[in-house]
Structures are given as C-alpha cells and as structure tokens.
C-alpha cells in the first residue's frame, strides 16, 4: 500500500473507529462525548485536504485519479465485487464540501448539543455518517457505492430519529428511510442491469479490467444493447438519485427530516447526503450522456422540483422547513444542470450550495437556540440586534443563495441556467429564472420575519435571548467565507474557472458525446445577457422580499402581504399545504396500502390457511359423517356385510367375468 492509499483508508477508518469508540464508551464521557468524534473528524478533514491538494493541485494521480482495491468483497463466482476506492477530481471536489462542512458541523455540535443527554449517540451517529458519506464518495464500484448509499440513509435515519421519544421524529425517520428505499429499489435494479449487461460493476477502467463507463457505451455502440436499454439503465439508476436527493416525487421525506437536530439538517439534509444523488449522476455521466432521453427527464424532474419546492417555501412558517424546501429547490437546479449536460456547473452548485446552505441551517439552528427551540417564524422577529453574528452570517448566506453577484450562489446558479439556455433547454431556463426570483423572495421573507421588524418572541423568553457560544459562531463565520468567495475563486470566469479545469477530465467524454460545442465564455452577447438576466431575477426576488418583509429598519408591509395572500388564496393554500403531497401519500400508501395489507392478511388467514384448516375440518367432518354408519346395531352391520357381499358377487359375476 502506498502512503496515499493508506491515507484514503484512514479517511474511512478514522470516522468508523470514532463511531465505534463513541458508541462503546461515549456514554461515560458525559458532556465530553465529543472528545473522540470531533478530533477524529478534524484529522479526517486534514487528510482529506491533503488528498484534495494532491489530486487537484499537484495532479498527483493523473486524469484517472487514484484507484486501489482493499480486498475482494463479494466473490460470488463471476459476480466479483472488490472493495475498491477511487480518488479523482470529482471525488476531491466533493471531499472538500463533505469534510469541511462535516468538520464544522461537528465543532458546531459541541455547543449545540451540550445540554442534550444523548449527545454521545449524536456524535457517534455523526461519525457513522461521515464514514458512510466518505465511503460513498470514495467508492469505485456500483455495489460499494450502493452500500454506502444505504449507510448514509441509515445514519440519516438514526439522526432524524435522534429524539426518539418525539413521535414526529420517529415517523419522519421512518419515512425518510422508506422513501429512500423506493429510490434504492430502482438503483439496485439498475446495478443489476449494469452487471447483467457488462459483467462488471467497477466504474472506470483500471489494471483490474475495463470498467462500466467504458463498457456500456461500447456495448451500445456495438449494438449489444438497444438504446432503450441504456435509457432504462440510466433511469433506474436515476431513481436512486431521486430518492437520495429528494427529487419529485420522492421529495416528501426531506422536509420531515427537519425533525432531526439542526446540525444534522445542515450536514446531511442540506450540504452532503442530499447531494449524493447529484454526485452519483455526475459520476455516472458516461452512462447518462449516452441517452438523451434520460438526460431530458433528469432535467425535467430537476426543474420541476425546483419550482415546486420554491413555491412551497414561500409560505412555510417553520424556519427549517423553509430552508428544507429551499434545499429541494436548489437540488432541483443541480439536477436541471445535470440534465442539460452542465455537469461541472451542477457540481459547482453542489459545492457552493453546500456551504451557504450549511451556513443557513447552522444559522437557523443558532436562531432556534436563541429563542429556546422555537421554529415558527411568526414567533420571531427583530432578532438582528440580539444575535448579530448569526444575523450577519445568515444574511450573507441569503444573499449567496438568492444569487446576487458576486457571492458564490450567483456563479453556480447562473452557470446552470446559462448552460440550459445554450444547450437548448429554454423551458428549463425560463422556469429557472422564475425560481431565481422566488428564491430571493422566500429567502428574504425568512430573513425579514426572523430578524427584522417587530419582535413576536414570547415575552418570557425575550430577555434571555443571547448569541450562541463560540463553538457555534465560529463555524458560521468559517462557512460564511466560502459562501462569499468560493464563486469568485473557483468559478470565474464562468465555464472555464478553476473548478472546470479540475473537472474537465471527468466530464470530457460526456461532453463530447453530447456534442456540446463549448464556445468560450465572453463577457458579451448571449453570455452576458443570460448573466444579466440571472442577476436581475435574483435582485428582483430579493427586492420583493425586502419590500414585503423589511430589512434592518425598513418596515414590513404586513397588510400588503395579507392582501396579496387573499388575492391568491387558492395558490396560497396549495403552497401552504405543500400541494397536498403528504396527504396524497397518506391516502395511497398508508390508507390504501394498509387496506391492501389487511385484505391480504385476511386472505392469508381465511383463504390460504382457511384451505388448510378446511381440509382438516373436512377430514374430520367426513370422519364424523362416516362414523354414523357405525350405529352400534348388529343388524345394521350385518346388512352392511350382506350388501358388501352382494356388491362383490354382482361385480364378480356380471362385471369382471363379462
């Protein structure tokens, strides 16, 4: 094993051992339960950064990246799956997000969870999550990725249900897992299809042999599989991504997942795990690139989710739910980006979004902390003076997500929209722009209702409001920095920034296959126009937000908002009720499914088992019936014998002898 390989292994081993240790002894550490998990994570982060540096800056592993096998995992005949890892540019980029935010969230949690008796479990779970997420990012074959995929689902389940005695948390955790399983159902079948088609599950071609990304296009080319099969494979795989990244119609679990502690929301349900779908589709770009139909569907699902979620985010009252729907919406953007072929842009947005959404969630956590676990924005207001660091960092995050230049969100989002337009997806672009307006609006609605205007905080709590401890504010500040700068640093100039250079080898083939003729970005013409429209849309949205809900001292226009609400009452109601998706699901799965299950159970007991018991009962009743001939009367018996004699004699003489 080379040093780098050892580092990669350590990257997994550290959080795993952190999990194991914390699980075993964490309870005895009481308030210092973080003392294993957090240092471990910092070390992990350091190693990750080293690897990122090696990969991206030193280009130490070449275009292909570092590939190596730990051991043979599933040697089931010719279905032979290695436990193998890869570190290439894409991995490295995602590693940055995952480890950085992960590390910050760990630190943040020290303060946030300081008073929770279950903190040891919390840190154990967090480490388990980090292990799973890193495994997901590092995995070099479908099955291992799938395993990690499920493991992050598990961590998510555990963390959502962290406050297990809350029924809502338990239900949300279950829902998250099961909805994810729906996606994984497709994913697993997709993997099976891949293996059946090409006989391997390794992503890329290494010394060990050719990989899927080489073989599948070849198979298509050689006619070994029909194009629709390719589409089928891609869509099955995409199903998994939809589940994990909460895309319509599997988006229902994410808002409920906010039942978990806020750091979890920040880490898992905003910055990392939900990005797994995006990461995976980007990873599988050689497959998707072969099938335009699938690509279009990805784009459609993405952009539809974007606008759907944004529309819901506009009316939610729970601060974390607004952010959750915002996350959905942003993820929709990313899928739209993937679908239109702007893989790098999607990953770019993944990165920036990871930071600013992480920031926003942590900030909201800080707010919730400040107002004593109150999440309803109608019971907040005017907090900006009392928790200034939280306020300022969140303001930065809001501007970033709204897409106001030159903050990070602007670059990534506009790149997606511009690519959509240029790659011929005008509809996607149009909707995207509308969503951009809505983004500004709902973000500044959030800001306004939380921080500005009059305070609606419970008077008992009001005097106790104070800024969060340093372990919480420092991560906020640290996250605010990339939220501001990341776009400029790696995203400028658009479509040929640092990030694009890094990722170019990964998406090279896909771009070629899709025949996207990349004209270099020029600050004029169509490029500039699109850039301007994007910025303008963001600004419009933000302006509306400020207009309605205030900023610093600006007054809120409560009356206007109410009038507006009344005007669009049906729309408002629909949005407020999240377009009744939960109700629909409840109807279909809980009620109808329950009915079916009950009916089948009835069938099982009455029909299947009933047949078995019926045969037994029939035997018994036949026996009881036949018993009657045993009357106890000799004459009856004798008659029976005589009758038997007659039958035998008659048959002998008249039948057999005939």
């Amino acid at each position, binding site marked *: 094993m080379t040093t780098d390989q050892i580092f990669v292994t350590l990257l997994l081993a550290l959080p795993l051992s952190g999990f194991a240790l914390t699980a075993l002894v964490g309870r005895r550490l009481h308030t210092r339960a973080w003392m294993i998990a957090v240092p471990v994570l910092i070390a992990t982060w350091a190693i990750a950064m080293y690897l990122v540096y090696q990969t991206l800056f030193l280009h130490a592993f070449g275009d292909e990246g570092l590939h190596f096998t730990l*051991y*043979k*995992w*599933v*040697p*089931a*005949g*010719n*279905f032979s799956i290695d436990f193998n890892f890869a570190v290439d540019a894409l991995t490295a980029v995602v590693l940055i997000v995952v480890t950085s935010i992960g590390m910050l969230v760990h630190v943040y949690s020290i303060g946030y969870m300081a008073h929770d008796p279950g903190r040891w479990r919390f840190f154990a779970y967090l480490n388990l999550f980090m292990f799973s997420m890193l495994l997901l990012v590092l995995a070099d074959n479908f*099955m291992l990725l*799938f*395993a*990690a995929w*499920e*493991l992050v689902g*598990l961590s998510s*389940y555990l963390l959502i*249900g962290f406050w*297990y*005695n*809350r*029924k809502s*948390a*338990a*239900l949300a*955790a*279950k829902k998250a*897992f*099961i909805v994810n*399983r*729906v996606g*994984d*159902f497709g994913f*697993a*079948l997709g*993997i*099976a*299809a891949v*293996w*059946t*088609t090409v006989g391997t599950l390794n992503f890329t071609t290494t010394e060990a042999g050719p990989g899927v990304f080489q073989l599948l296009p070849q198979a298509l080319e050689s006619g070994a*599989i029909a194009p629709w*099969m390719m589409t089928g494979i891609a869509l099955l795989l995409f199903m998994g991504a939809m589940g994990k990244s909460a895309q319509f119609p599997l988006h229902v679990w994410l808002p409920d997942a906010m039942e978990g502690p806020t750091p979890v929301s920040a880490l898992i349900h905003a910055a990392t795990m939900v990005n797994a779908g995006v990461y995976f589709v980007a990873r599988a770009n050689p497959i998707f690139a072969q099938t335009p139909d699938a690509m279009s569907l990805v784009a459609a699902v993405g952009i539809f989710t974007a606008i759907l979620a944004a529309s819901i985010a506009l009316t939610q009252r729970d601060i974390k739910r607004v952010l959750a729907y915002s996350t959905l919406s942003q993820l929709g953007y990313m899928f739209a980006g993937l679908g239109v072929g702007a893989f790098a842009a999607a990953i770019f947005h993944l990165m920036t979004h990871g930071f600013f959404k992480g920031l926003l969630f942590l900030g909201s956590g800080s707010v919730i902390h400040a107002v004593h676990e109150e999440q309803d924005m109608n019971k907040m207001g005017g907090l900006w003076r009392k928790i200034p660091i939280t306020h300022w960092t969140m303001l930065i995050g809001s501007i970033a997500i709204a897409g106001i230049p030159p903050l990070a969100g602007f670059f990534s989002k506009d790149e997606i929209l511009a690519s959509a337009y240029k790659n011929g997806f005008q509809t996607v672009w149009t909707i995207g722009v509308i969503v951009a307006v809505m983004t500004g609006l709902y973000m500044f609605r959030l800001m306004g209702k939380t921080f500005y205007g009059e305070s609606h905080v419970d008077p008992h709590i009001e005097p106790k409001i104070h800024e969060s401890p340093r372990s919480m504010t420092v991560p906020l500040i640290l996250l605010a920095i990339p939220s501001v700068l990341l776009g400029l640093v790696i995203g400028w100039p658009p479509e040929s920034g640092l990030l694009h250079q890094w990722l170019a080898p990964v998406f090279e083939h896909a771009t070629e296959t899709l025949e996207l003729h990349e004209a270099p970005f020029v600050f004029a013409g169509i490029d500039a126009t699109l850039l301007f429209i994007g910025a303008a849309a963001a600004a419009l949205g933000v302006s509306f937000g400020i207009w309605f809900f205030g900023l610093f001292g600006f007054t809120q226009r409560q009356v206007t908002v109410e009038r507006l609400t009344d005007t669009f009452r049906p729309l408002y109601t629909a949005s407020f009720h999240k377009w009744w998706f939960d109700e629909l699901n409840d109807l279909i799965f809980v009620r109808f*499914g*329950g009915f*079916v*299950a*009950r009916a*089948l*159970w009835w069938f*099982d*007991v009455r029909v*299947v*088992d009933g*047949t*078995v018991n019926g045969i*037994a009962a029939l035997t018994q009743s036949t026996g009881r019936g036949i018993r009657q001939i045993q009357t106890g009367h000799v004459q009856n018996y004798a008659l029976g014998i005589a009758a038997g004699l007659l039958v035998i004699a008659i048959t002998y003489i008249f039948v057999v002898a005939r």
Partner: protein
Amino acid sequence: MIDFVSGLPILSLITFTPLAGAVLIAFLPRERLNWIRWAALGTALIAWAFSLLLLTSFDPGAAGFQFGEVADWVPAFGIQYKLGVDGISLALVVLTTTLTWISILASFGPIKERVKEYMISFLILEVGMTGVFLALDMFLFYIFWELVLIPMYLIIGIWGGANRIYATIKFVLYTLVGSLLMLVAILAMAYTYQAHTGTWVGAFDYLTLHDFGFDPTLQFFAFAAFFLAFAIKVPMFPFHTWLPDAHVEAPTAGSVILAGVLLKLGGYGLLRFAVPLFPDAAHDWAPLVIVLSLIGIVYGAIVALVQPDLKKLVAYSSVSHMGFVTLGIFVFTEQGLHGALIQMIAHGILTGGLFLLVGVIYERTHDRTIAKMGGLAGRLPVYSAILGFFVLGSLGLPGLAGFIGEFVTIIGAFDFYPWVAAIAALAMMLGAAYLLFMYQRVVFGDLSDFLKGIGHHLTDLNRTEIVTLAPLVVLATGFGVFPGLLLQLWQTPVTEFVARLVPAALAFP
C-alpha cells in the same frame, strides 16, 4: 489442514455428540436443573467445537464431498450410512451447531419446567438437523429429516404458548404430508434405479443417483413430491401458514431453531436433492417455483406490515426472506445460488437474533403485542440498539449479511429475467416498511402505559442474553463485510450445481 482430523469420523462426531449428551442427560436426576442445563450446553458446545474443527480442516477448493464416512446399513436395499460434507452443507452445519448452543443458552432462563425433557429434545433435534445436512444416502437423509419432526413437535407442544397444540399438530401434519410423499418419491427413484441396473447397490446413494439421469415422467412426479416436502418446510407460499402459528406458539429457542435451521432444511433439500436429482423436471417447474417465490416475497412482506404480534411479524418476514432463497435456487444462475445460500445463513443469524430479542421482551412482559409496546429506547437502550441492529440487518442493510443475500439474489434473478428481479426487489421497500414500522412502534416514543405497568421487571439485557446475541451480531457483521468467507467456501459446489443446469437465459425482456 490439521492432520488428525482426517483420521476421526468427524462428521459422525458432530452428528451424534448431541445424542450422547441426550443420553447422559436422561440419566441425570430430574431436580438437578443446573446439571442438566450445563450438560446440554456443554454437549452443544462440544458439537460446535467439532464443527469448527471441521471448518478449519475443510478444503474449499476440492471438488465433491469430503470427510466421507460409509458403512453398509441395509445391504438388501443398498442402504448405507453415508455422510459427507461440501461447502454448502458445512456452512449450514456450522450454523446449526452455533444456533443450537445459543438456543440452549437462551433457554436457561425461560425454561423452568421439565427442563430435562426439553434439553433432550433439543439435543435430539440437533442430531436430526445436522444429519440432514450431512447425509449422502437418500434413506439416511429421510431418517434424519423425520427425526427433526418429533423433538420440534414436543418443543412447541409442551413448552409453547396458549394455542400450542393446534400449532404443533399443524406443523407436524403439514410437514408429514410433504415428507411422506417425498418418501414415495425416494422409493420410486430407488426402484427405478434398481430396475435399470438390476442391483440395489447404490439405489439410495445420492452420488450414484445424482448421475443416473431419470426418465422425464419419474422426474416430473418425483420432483413434485420432493418439491412439496421442501416447499412446505421453507415455507413457500401457499404452504406457509403453519409457520406463523408455529412461531407464535413456540418457545423462544424453538422459534430460533425453527427459523434459523429448520427452514433451511427446505432450502437445502431443494438445492441438494430436488434440483440436481431431477434437473429436467426442475427446469420445467422453475417458472412456477419462481412465481411462487415472488408471491411469497411480496406477499409475506405485505402481510407482515399489519401483524399485531411481534412473532407473527417476524414469521411473515421469514416467508418473505425465504422467498429469496427459493428464487435464488430456481433462477439457476451462479449468483442466484450464491445469493440463496448466503441468504439462508443470513436469515438464520438475523431472524434467530430477532426471535431471541422478541423472547427477551416476552419474558419480561408476557406479551408480544406491538400496540402495547413503545418507548423501549429510553428504558432499555442496549436492547433497543441490538434490536435495531437485527432489524436493520433483516431489512438488508449493507454491511450486514442480509444485504449480500438479497442483493446477490437480485443480481442472479435479473440475469435470469429482469422483471423477476424487479418484483423481488420490492421487498427492499416493503421490508424496510414493516420492520421500521415495528421498530418505531416498539422502541420509539414515550414508554407505553402497558410497559410502565411492568415496573422494575422491565430490565435491560442481562449478561446471558448478551452472550447469546453477541455471536450473532459478530457473524451478521462479519458475513456482511467479508461475505467471501462464505462464498468461497461453497464456490466449488455452486459451480458444479450451475454446470448441471443450463438455464434458459432470457435476454433483457
């Protein structure tokens, strides 16, 4: 290779050590409960140690059966006492010996009445189970097969729950119908052989019959009989209804063995006897079997969703999980078989664990109604965590053995016919649904009023219980992370199995 093992009749030792223990216990005084208990545990541990010794000496690369033991038994019919082990049977034997001592240990507390008879029954049960896996003579196999029946009958019937008599008689009759028909098939097979070759020598010998090649008509009917016997044992839809009853009524350890080993007898029978002996018939029957397996998988899971009783839920989950076993066997692909086998082992471990855990809660509360539970996590954290482990393992979480079983089976099934895999994969969702639904209701939330009423009796796992569960946790994880340990063990026989059957591989639909 440890040399001295090759000189020992190691297979007979494994098989009959428990019998010796049973005889010993028969002579122990009835009141000395602890003597009896420890003697039983000791015997089971010795058998276990022998099986581990066998494991270390086994050569996975060698073809055919190893450590063969042959002696004439009824020469008039060519019946032999013939034992042998290959990778498949070895794994199942070790599973059996392991689960047996765990079950015996787990019975220390709950079984307080007629301990002597209980332990004797259990040890004889082990003889039968081990024998089934090791027998290479059809007749011997049948003897062991029936031998399993009586101890289980007693275990359910004597130490079971309120409705135990109904359950145990149902279990026996159901199994007996199948096995007696199988006996007819065995005899028909032997006779056909004898009629062809003119000699009884080898008429019951598995290896001889294996290569004999029966005519299609015989294959058809004999397969039907074998299949019925094994399908009942597995149990496959629609022959599964004895299982929920038996499980609900059986004592904890009985459930563990029932789910952990007895169901495997069916799966083992299918892949060791029904398919290789009658390959053509198996081929003809495969579509039906696959359809039944799929129905079992989905149906068992759906019905499990609405079970009010913990044990019933686990029982129906067994129907679903064992559907993967039969599916894997009958898609006739290498992966399918691998998957089926590892699913058997995984199901044995995981469901065994689940039943142990249900037993723990039953012992404390004398109830298994899910609706009455709730909030155990706060009161019984260790219990909840381990229950969580087994629930997750059972729903096929990667990293644990169940995942490998299901996934590899799905791969194999997809290779055979994609829609089959698609339907089987529904279990991924449904399994998560019913197991998590159960887990949520039992473990999460506030402590239910019913459990509050239990008071201080509601204690967390004690040391014995942890000792019984720990090996299962280790095994489930070990085989999830290193499934190669198992897969390579039976690679050789699996290859042989598949080589005999060329599946009518359907292309992508």
